[in-house]
Protein backbone atom coordinates (compact mmCIF):
# COMPACT_ATOMS: atom_id res chain seq x y z
CA UNK A 1 0.00 0.00 0.00
CA UNK A 2 1.45 3.38 -1.00
CA UNK A 3 2.00 5.87 1.79
CA UNK A 4 0.25 9.25 1.61
CA UNK A 5 3.56 10.91 0.74
CA UNK A 6 4.29 8.52 -2.13
CA UNK A 7 0.75 8.88 -3.38
CA UNK A 8 1.09 12.68 -3.32
CA UNK A 9 4.40 12.60 -5.19
CA UNK A 10 2.85 10.40 -7.89
CA UNK A 11 -0.10 12.74 -8.26
CA UNK A 12 2.20 15.76 -8.59
CA UNK A 13 4.53 14.02 -11.08
CA UNK A 14 1.65 12.68 -13.16
CA UNK A 15 -0.10 16.05 -13.16
CA UNK A 16 3.05 17.90 -14.18
CA UNK A 17 3.74 15.52 -17.06
CA UNK A 18 0.11 15.73 -18.22
CA UNK A 19 0.26 19.54 -18.19
CA UNK A 20 3.51 19.54 -20.17
CA UNK A 21 2.05 17.10 -22.68
CA UNK A 22 -1.12 19.16 -23.16
CA UNK A 23 0.88 22.40 -23.47
CA UNK A 24 3.15 20.77 -26.05
CA UNK A 25 0.14 19.51 -28.02
CA UNK A 26 -1.51 22.94 -27.93
CA UNK A 27 1.43 25.25 -28.61
CA UNK A 28 4.60 23.17 -28.98
CA UNK A 29 6.73 22.08 -31.90
CA UNK A 30 8.72 18.91 -32.59
CA UNK A 31 11.66 20.64 -30.89
CA UNK A 32 9.97 20.17 -27.48
CA UNK A 33 10.01 16.37 -27.69
CA UNK A 34 9.00 14.38 -25.60
CA UNK A 35 6.30 17.01 -25.05
CA UNK A 36 5.87 17.63 -28.77
CA UNK A 37 2.62 17.57 -30.73
CA UNK A 38 1.70 14.22 -32.27
CA UNK A 39 2.06 15.64 -35.74
CA UNK A 40 2.91 12.66 -37.92
CA UNK A 41 0.62 12.74 -40.99
CA UNK A 42 -1.25 15.69 -39.50
CA UNK A 43 -0.58 18.07 -42.39
CA UNK A 44 -3.29 18.60 -44.93
CA UNK A 45 -2.34 17.64 -48.49
CA UNK A 46 -4.74 19.31 -50.88
CA UNK A 47 -6.26 16.95 -53.47
CA UNK A 48 -4.80 19.20 -56.17
CA UNK A 49 -1.27 20.07 -55.10
CA UNK A 50 2.38 19.16 -55.45
CA UNK A 51 4.89 17.76 -52.99
CA UNK A 52 8.62 17.16 -53.14
CA UNK A 53 10.98 14.40 -52.16
CA UNK A 54 14.73 14.24 -52.64
CA UNK A 55 17.33 11.74 -53.76
CA UNK A 56 21.08 11.67 -54.16
CA UNK A 57 22.94 10.21 -57.11
CA UNK A 58 26.63 9.38 -56.74
CA UNK A 59 29.51 8.89 -59.15
CA UNK A 60 32.51 7.07 -57.71
CA UNK A 61 36.19 7.08 -58.68
CA UNK A 62 35.58 4.25 -61.14
CA UNK A 63 33.02 6.36 -62.96
CA UNK A 64 30.10 4.25 -61.77
CA UNK A 65 26.86 6.14 -61.33
CA UNK A 66 24.36 4.91 -58.75
CA UNK A 67 21.57 6.04 -56.48
CA UNK A 68 22.74 6.67 -52.91
CA UNK A 69 19.96 5.89 -50.42
CA UNK A 70 19.93 8.28 -47.44
CA UNK A 71 20.55 5.40 -45.02
CA UNK A 72 24.03 4.95 -46.54
CA UNK A 73 24.72 8.51 -45.36
CA UNK A 74 23.27 7.80 -41.90
CA UNK A 75 19.93 9.51 -42.48
CA UNK A 76 16.33 8.54 -43.08
CA UNK A 77 14.61 9.82 -46.25
CA UNK A 78 12.50 12.25 -44.29
CA UNK A 79 15.61 13.52 -42.47
CA UNK A 80 17.29 14.15 -45.80
CA UNK A 81 14.26 16.20 -46.85
CA UNK A 82 14.40 18.21 -43.60
CA UNK A 83 18.14 18.80 -44.01
CA UNK A 84 17.58 20.00 -47.59
CA UNK A 85 15.01 22.51 -46.34
CA UNK A 86 17.41 23.65 -43.60
CA UNK A 87 20.30 24.07 -46.07
CA UNK A 88 18.34 25.55 -48.98
CA UNK A 89 20.90 28.30 -49.48
CA UNK A 90 23.94 26.01 -49.19
CA UNK A 91 23.01 22.72 -50.79
CA UNK A 92 26.52 22.06 -52.14
CA UNK A 93 27.82 22.30 -48.56
CA UNK A 94 25.11 19.87 -47.48
CA UNK A 95 26.24 17.39 -50.14
CA UNK A 96 29.82 17.75 -48.92
CA UNK A 97 28.69 16.92 -45.37
CA UNK A 98 26.67 13.96 -46.64
CA UNK A 99 29.74 12.73 -48.48
CA UNK A 100 31.75 12.96 -45.23
CA UNK A 101 29.08 10.93 -43.44
CA UNK A 102 29.20 8.31 -46.20
CA UNK A 103 32.98 8.06 -45.91
CA UNK A 104 32.76 7.56 -42.12
CA UNK A 105 30.16 4.84 -42.51
CA UNK A 106 31.70 3.10 -45.53
CA UNK A 107 35.43 3.69 -45.45
CA UNK A 108 35.96 0.41 -47.33
CA UNK A 109 33.98 1.43 -50.41
CA UNK A 110 35.27 3.15 -53.53
CA UNK A 111 35.58 6.90 -52.87
CA UNK A 112 32.95 9.21 -54.32
CA UNK A 113 33.89 11.86 -56.85
CA UNK A 114 30.59 13.58 -57.40
CA UNK A 115 27.16 13.85 -55.78
CA UNK A 116 23.99 15.16 -57.37
CA UNK A 117 20.92 16.17 -55.35
CA UNK A 118 17.64 15.72 -57.18
CA UNK A 119 14.23 17.05 -56.30
CA UNK A 120 11.26 14.91 -57.32
CA UNK A 121 8.04 16.88 -57.63
CA UNK A 122 4.83 14.85 -57.62
CA UNK A 123 1.58 16.49 -58.80
CA UNK A 124 -1.85 15.47 -57.58
CA UNK A 125 -5.06 16.53 -59.33
CA UNK A 126 -8.39 15.75 -57.75
CA UNK A 127 -6.70 13.33 -55.37
CA UNK A 128 -5.11 11.37 -58.22
CA UNK A 129 -1.53 11.18 -59.40
CA UNK A 130 -1.20 13.64 -62.27
CA UNK A 131 2.51 13.66 -62.95
CA UNK A 132 6.05 13.45 -61.64
CA UNK A 133 9.22 15.25 -62.64
CA UNK A 134 12.74 15.27 -61.31
CA UNK A 135 15.45 17.89 -61.62
CA UNK A 136 18.97 18.25 -60.28
CA UNK A 137 19.14 21.11 -57.78
CA UNK A 138 22.71 20.85 -56.44
CA UNK A 139 26.09 19.26 -57.14
CA UNK A 140 29.19 18.47 -55.20
CA UNK A 141 32.50 17.42 -56.73
CA UNK A 142 35.87 16.66 -55.13
CA UNK A 143 37.68 18.44 -57.96
Amino acid at each position, binding site marked *: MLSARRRRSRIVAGGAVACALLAGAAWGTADEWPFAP*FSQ*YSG*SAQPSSTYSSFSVTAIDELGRRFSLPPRLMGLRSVELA*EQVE*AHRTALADLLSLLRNSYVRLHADRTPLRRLILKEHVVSLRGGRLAGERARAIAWWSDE
Partner: protein
Amino acid sequence: MSDSSAARSLTGRARGALVWWFAPLPLGRVAAFRVAAYAFVFIDVLGLRPWVSAHGSVAGELYRPLLVGRLLHLPTPTPLLTSVVEIALLLSAGAALTGRWPRAAGWAVFALYSEWMVIAFSYGKVDHDRWAFLVALAVLPTVGRARLGQRTPSDAAGWALRCIQLAVVATYFLSLWAKLRFGGFGWPSSAVLERAILQRGTFLATPLLDHPGILVAAQYGTVIFELCSPLLLVRGRVGRAYLVAAAGFHVVTYAAISIMFWPHVLCLLCAFLPLERVRLDGAMRRLLARPGAPLRGG
Protein backbone atom coordinates in the same frame (compact mmCIF):
# COMPACT_ATOMS: atom_id res chain seq x y z
CA MET B 1 -26.50 24.61 -8.56
CA SER B 2 -24.96 26.68 -5.74
CA ASP B 3 -21.25 27.41 -5.57
CA SER B 4 -20.76 25.07 -2.63
CA SER B 5 -22.55 22.13 -4.27
CA ALA B 6 -20.63 22.73 -7.53
CA ALA B 7 -17.39 22.68 -5.55
CA ARG B 8 -18.51 19.48 -3.80
CA SER B 9 -19.34 17.90 -7.15
CA LEU B 10 -15.94 18.91 -8.55
CA THR B 11 -14.18 17.56 -5.48
CA GLY B 12 -16.16 14.35 -5.78
CA ARG B 13 -15.13 13.92 -9.42
CA ALA B 14 -11.48 14.63 -8.62
CA ARG B 15 -11.63 12.08 -5.82
CA GLY B 16 -13.24 9.59 -8.21
CA ALA B 17 -10.45 10.16 -10.73
CA LEU B 18 -7.83 9.57 -8.03
CA VAL B 19 -9.59 6.40 -6.90
CA TRP B 20 -9.52 5.19 -10.52
CA TRP B 21 -5.87 6.23 -10.97
CA PHE B 22 -4.72 4.27 -7.92
CA ALA B 23 -7.14 1.33 -8.18
CA PRO B 24 -5.04 -1.76 -7.49
CA LEU B 25 -4.03 -3.97 -10.41
CA PRO B 26 -2.15 -7.29 -10.30
CA LEU B 27 1.61 -7.14 -9.93
CA GLY B 28 1.90 -9.94 -12.47
CA ARG B 29 0.84 -7.56 -15.23
CA VAL B 30 3.71 -5.23 -14.35
CA ALA B 31 6.14 -8.16 -14.37
CA ALA B 32 4.91 -9.30 -17.80
CA PHE B 33 5.02 -5.72 -19.09
CA ARG B 34 8.62 -5.42 -17.92
CA VAL B 35 9.64 -8.55 -19.79
CA ALA B 36 7.98 -7.26 -22.98
CA ALA B 37 9.31 -3.70 -22.64
CA TYR B 38 12.91 -4.55 -21.80
CA ALA B 39 13.04 -7.28 -24.46
CA PHE B 40 11.65 -4.76 -26.94
CA VAL B 41 14.60 -2.45 -26.23
CA PHE B 42 16.87 -5.12 -27.77
CA ILE B 43 14.58 -5.56 -30.77
CA ASP B 44 14.32 -1.81 -31.25
CA VAL B 45 18.01 -0.97 -30.94
CA LEU B 46 19.36 -3.94 -32.87
CA GLY B 47 16.58 -4.67 -35.33
CA LEU B 48 13.99 -1.98 -35.93
CA ARG B 49 16.10 1.18 -35.74
CA PRO B 50 19.70 0.44 -36.67
CA TRP B 51 19.87 3.93 -38.17
CA VAL B 52 20.06 5.49 -34.70
CA SER B 53 23.60 4.23 -34.16
CA ALA B 54 24.47 5.40 -37.71
CA HIS B 55 23.66 8.94 -36.58
CA GLY B 56 26.94 8.85 -34.68
CA SER B 57 28.76 8.88 -38.02
CA VAL B 58 26.73 11.69 -39.55
CA ALA B 59 28.59 14.97 -39.87
CA GLY B 60 28.20 16.97 -36.66
CA GLU B 61 27.04 20.02 -38.63
CA LEU B 62 23.79 18.17 -39.41
CA TYR B 63 23.00 17.64 -35.71
CA ARG B 64 20.05 19.82 -34.71
CA PRO B 65 19.63 19.06 -31.02
CA LEU B 66 16.15 19.05 -29.54
CA LEU B 67 15.34 21.49 -26.75
CA VAL B 68 16.00 18.82 -24.11
CA GLY B 69 19.42 18.17 -25.65
CA ARG B 70 20.27 21.87 -25.56
CA LEU B 71 19.04 22.32 -21.99
CA LEU B 72 21.01 19.33 -20.72
CA HIS B 73 24.04 20.17 -22.90
CA LEU B 74 24.00 16.68 -24.35
CA PRO B 75 27.05 16.11 -26.55
CA THR B 76 26.95 15.91 -30.34
CA PRO B 77 26.72 12.22 -31.29
CA THR B 78 29.91 10.53 -32.41
CA PRO B 79 30.59 6.86 -33.20
CA LEU B 80 32.09 6.49 -29.70
CA LEU B 81 29.18 8.16 -27.92
CA THR B 82 26.51 6.17 -29.76
CA SER B 83 28.43 2.93 -29.10
CA VAL B 84 28.74 3.71 -25.39
CA VAL B 85 25.05 4.62 -25.06
CA GLU B 86 24.00 1.59 -27.09
CA ILE B 87 26.05 -0.87 -25.04
CA ALA B 88 25.04 0.70 -21.72
CA LEU B 89 21.39 0.66 -22.77
CA LEU B 90 21.50 -3.00 -23.76
CA LEU B 91 23.33 -3.98 -20.57
CA SER B 92 20.76 -2.09 -18.48
CA ALA B 93 17.87 -3.67 -20.36
CA GLY B 94 19.45 -7.08 -19.86
CA ALA B 95 19.80 -6.42 -16.15
CA ALA B 96 16.22 -5.18 -15.93
CA LEU B 97 15.04 -8.23 -17.83
CA THR B 98 16.44 -10.53 -15.18
CA GLY B 99 14.33 -8.75 -12.58
CA ARG B 100 17.17 -8.54 -10.06
CA TRP B 101 17.27 -4.74 -9.71
CA PRO B 102 13.86 -3.54 -10.91
CA ARG B 103 14.33 0.06 -9.79
CA ALA B 104 18.02 0.79 -10.51
CA ALA B 105 18.12 -1.08 -13.81
CA GLY B 106 14.72 0.31 -14.81
CA TRP B 107 15.74 3.91 -14.20
CA ALA B 108 18.98 3.33 -16.12
CA VAL B 109 17.01 1.98 -19.09
CA PHE B 110 14.69 5.00 -18.97
CA ALA B 111 17.57 7.50 -18.90
CA LEU B 112 19.63 5.77 -21.59
CA TYR B 113 16.66 5.11 -23.86
CA SER B 114 15.70 8.79 -23.58
CA GLU B 115 19.21 9.79 -24.68
CA TRP B 116 18.99 7.20 -27.48
CA MET B 117 15.81 8.89 -28.67
CA VAL B 118 17.42 12.34 -28.52
CA ILE B 119 20.15 10.97 -30.79
CA ALA B 120 17.46 9.50 -33.04
CA PHE B 121 15.32 12.61 -33.34
CA SER B 122 17.94 15.36 -33.57
CA TYR B 123 18.46 15.19 -37.33
CA GLY B 124 15.20 16.69 -38.50
CA LYS B 125 12.48 14.12 -37.82
CA VAL B 126 10.65 13.32 -34.59
CA ASP B 127 8.46 10.22 -34.44
CA HIS B 128 5.42 10.19 -32.22
CA ASP B 129 5.05 6.50 -31.54
CA ARG B 130 7.32 6.58 -28.48
CA TRP B 131 5.28 8.53 -25.95
CA ALA B 132 3.49 5.63 -24.24
CA PHE B 133 6.66 3.54 -24.29
CA LEU B 134 8.68 6.30 -22.64
CA VAL B 135 5.97 6.68 -20.00
CA ALA B 136 6.12 2.91 -19.48
CA LEU B 137 9.91 2.98 -19.01
CA ALA B 138 9.48 5.86 -16.54
CA VAL B 139 6.78 4.28 -14.38
CA LEU B 140 7.67 0.58 -14.44
CA PRO B 141 10.63 1.04 -12.05
CA THR B 142 8.35 2.75 -9.49
CA VAL B 143 6.49 -0.47 -8.73
CA GLY B 144 9.33 -2.43 -7.17
CA ARG B 145 9.35 -6.20 -7.10
CA ALA B 146 6.77 -8.14 -9.05
CA ARG B 147 6.77 -11.65 -10.42
CA LEU B 148 5.20 -13.25 -13.45
CA GLY B 149 1.74 -14.61 -12.85
CA GLN B 150 1.42 -12.80 -9.51
CA ARG B 151 -2.24 -11.93 -8.95
CA THR B 152 -1.61 -9.78 -5.85
CA PRO B 153 -3.27 -6.38 -6.38
CA SER B 154 -1.12 -3.31 -5.80
CA ASP B 155 -1.97 0.38 -5.92
CA ALA B 156 1.59 1.14 -7.12
CA ALA B 157 1.03 -1.25 -10.03
CA GLY B 158 -2.39 0.27 -10.63
CA TRP B 159 -0.96 3.79 -10.82
CA ALA B 160 1.82 2.73 -13.18
CA LEU B 161 -0.43 0.79 -15.53
CA ARG B 162 -3.08 3.53 -15.55
CA CYS B 163 -0.36 6.05 -16.49
CA ILE B 164 0.56 3.88 -19.48
CA GLN B 165 -3.09 3.42 -20.42
CA LEU B 166 -3.59 7.19 -20.31
CA ALA B 167 -0.47 7.68 -22.43
CA VAL B 168 -1.82 5.27 -25.05
CA VAL B 169 -5.16 7.09 -25.17
CA ALA B 170 -3.41 10.47 -25.23
CA THR B 171 -1.38 9.36 -28.25
CA TYR B 172 -4.54 8.69 -30.25
CA PHE B 173 -6.55 11.63 -28.97
CA LEU B 174 -3.78 14.19 -29.30
CA SER B 175 -3.00 12.88 -32.79
CA LEU B 176 -6.50 13.98 -33.69
CA TRP B 177 -5.86 17.33 -32.06
CA ALA B 178 -2.66 17.70 -34.12
CA LYS B 179 -4.64 16.99 -37.30
CA LEU B 180 -7.01 19.81 -36.44
CA ARG B 181 -4.18 22.11 -35.43
CA PHE B 182 -1.93 21.56 -38.46
CA GLY B 183 -4.28 20.19 -41.09
CA GLY B 184 -7.46 22.02 -40.12
CA PHE B 185 -11.02 20.77 -40.43
CA GLY B 186 -10.27 19.89 -44.04
CA TRP B 187 -7.85 17.13 -43.02
CA PRO B 188 -10.31 14.24 -43.44
CA SER B 189 -11.09 15.22 -47.02
CA SER B 190 -7.48 15.97 -47.98
CA ALA B 191 -5.10 13.73 -49.93
CA VAL B 192 -2.92 12.68 -46.99
CA LEU B 193 -3.38 8.95 -47.52
CA GLU B 194 -3.00 9.32 -51.27
CA ARG B 195 0.36 10.96 -50.67
CA ALA B 196 1.40 8.39 -48.07
CA ILE B 197 0.59 5.55 -50.45
CA LEU B 198 2.50 7.22 -53.26
CA GLN B 199 5.51 7.52 -50.97
CA ARG B 200 5.43 4.15 -49.23
CA GLY B 201 2.33 2.25 -50.23
CA THR B 202 2.34 -1.55 -50.38
CA PHE B 203 0.98 -3.67 -53.21
CA LEU B 204 -2.23 -3.97 -51.19
CA ALA B 205 -2.80 -0.23 -51.02
CA THR B 206 -1.52 0.90 -54.41
CA PRO B 207 -4.74 -0.09 -56.28
CA LEU B 208 -6.61 2.32 -54.00
CA LEU B 209 -4.87 5.26 -55.67
CA ASP B 210 -7.53 4.99 -58.38
CA HIS B 211 -10.27 5.32 -55.76
CA PRO B 212 -9.64 8.53 -53.80
CA GLY B 213 -13.13 8.31 -52.33
CA ILE B 214 -12.17 5.17 -50.39
CA LEU B 215 -9.07 6.91 -49.06
CA VAL B 216 -11.10 9.92 -47.92
CA ALA B 217 -13.53 7.53 -46.18
CA ALA B 218 -10.55 5.91 -44.45
CA GLN B 219 -9.41 9.34 -43.26
CA TYR B 220 -12.86 10.03 -41.79
CA GLY B 221 -12.66 6.60 -40.17
CA THR B 222 -9.30 7.53 -38.64
CA VAL B 223 -10.78 10.71 -37.17
CA ILE B 224 -13.69 8.79 -35.62
CA PHE B 225 -11.31 6.10 -34.33
CA GLU B 226 -9.05 8.65 -32.64
CA LEU B 227 -11.97 10.68 -31.32
CA CYS B 228 -13.37 7.58 -29.63
CA SER B 229 -10.03 6.55 -28.09
CA PRO B 230 -11.12 7.32 -24.48
CA LEU B 231 -13.43 4.31 -24.87
CA LEU B 232 -10.30 2.21 -24.29
CA LEU B 233 -10.59 3.19 -20.63
CA VAL B 234 -14.17 1.91 -20.35
CA ARG B 235 -14.36 -1.40 -18.59
CA GLY B 236 -15.93 -4.45 -20.14
CA ARG B 237 -17.16 -5.07 -23.65
CA VAL B 238 -16.78 -1.47 -24.90
CA GLY B 239 -13.14 -1.23 -23.90
CA ARG B 240 -12.37 -4.67 -25.29
CA ALA B 241 -14.10 -3.84 -28.59
CA TYR B 242 -12.03 -0.67 -28.93
CA LEU B 243 -8.86 -2.63 -28.13
CA VAL B 244 -9.62 -5.06 -30.96
CA ALA B 245 -10.42 -2.12 -33.26
CA ALA B 246 -7.14 -0.45 -32.33
CA ALA B 247 -5.16 -3.60 -33.04
CA GLY B 248 -6.98 -3.88 -36.38
CA PHE B 249 -6.23 -0.24 -37.16
CA HIS B 250 -2.50 -0.85 -36.72
CA VAL B 251 -2.55 -4.03 -38.80
CA VAL B 252 -4.36 -2.25 -41.65
CA THR B 253 -1.96 0.72 -41.43
CA TYR B 254 0.98 -1.65 -41.67
CA ALA B 255 -0.57 -3.52 -44.59
CA ALA B 256 -1.28 -0.28 -46.45
CA ILE B 257 1.74 1.96 -45.88
CA SER B 258 4.16 -0.35 -44.01
CA ILE B 259 4.17 1.78 -40.88
CA MET B 260 3.86 0.01 -37.56
CA PHE B 261 4.04 1.94 -34.32
CA TRP B 262 5.74 -0.97 -32.55
CA PRO B 263 6.40 0.49 -29.09
CA HIS B 264 2.96 2.05 -28.98
CA VAL B 265 1.27 -1.22 -29.95
CA LEU B 266 3.31 -3.03 -27.30
CA CYS B 267 1.99 -0.59 -24.68
CA LEU B 268 -1.55 -0.90 -26.04
CA LEU B 269 -1.52 -4.66 -25.65
CA CYS B 270 0.47 -4.98 -22.43
CA ALA B 271 -1.33 -2.24 -20.49
CA PHE B 272 -4.87 -3.32 -21.35
CA LEU B 273 -4.69 -7.10 -21.64
CA PRO B 274 -4.77 -9.16 -18.42
CA LEU B 275 -1.25 -10.47 -18.87
CA GLU B 276 -1.16 -11.64 -15.27
CA ARG B 277 -3.35 -14.54 -16.40
CA VAL B 278 -0.81 -15.71 -18.94
CA ARG B 279 1.00 -18.71 -17.59
CA LEU B 280 4.64 -18.53 -18.45
CA ASP B 281 5.58 -22.00 -17.42
CA GLY B 282 8.82 -23.57 -18.40
CA ALA B 283 11.60 -21.81 -20.21
CA MET B 284 10.70 -18.18 -19.61
CA ARG B 285 10.19 -18.54 -15.86
CA ARG B 286 13.31 -20.63 -15.49
CA LEU B 287 15.22 -18.06 -17.53
CA LEU B 288 14.09 -15.23 -15.29
CA ALA B 289 14.52 -17.11 -12.04
CA ARG B 290 17.74 -16.95 -10.10
CA PRO B 291 19.38 -20.37 -10.05
CA GLY B 292 18.55 -22.04 -6.77
CA ALA B 293 16.14 -19.31 -5.69
CA PRO B 294 12.34 -19.28 -5.69
CA LEU B 295 10.84 -18.19 -9.02
CA ARG B 296 10.82 -14.41 -9.01
CA GLY B 297 10.69 -11.88 -11.77
CA GLY B 298 10.46 -8.09 -12.18
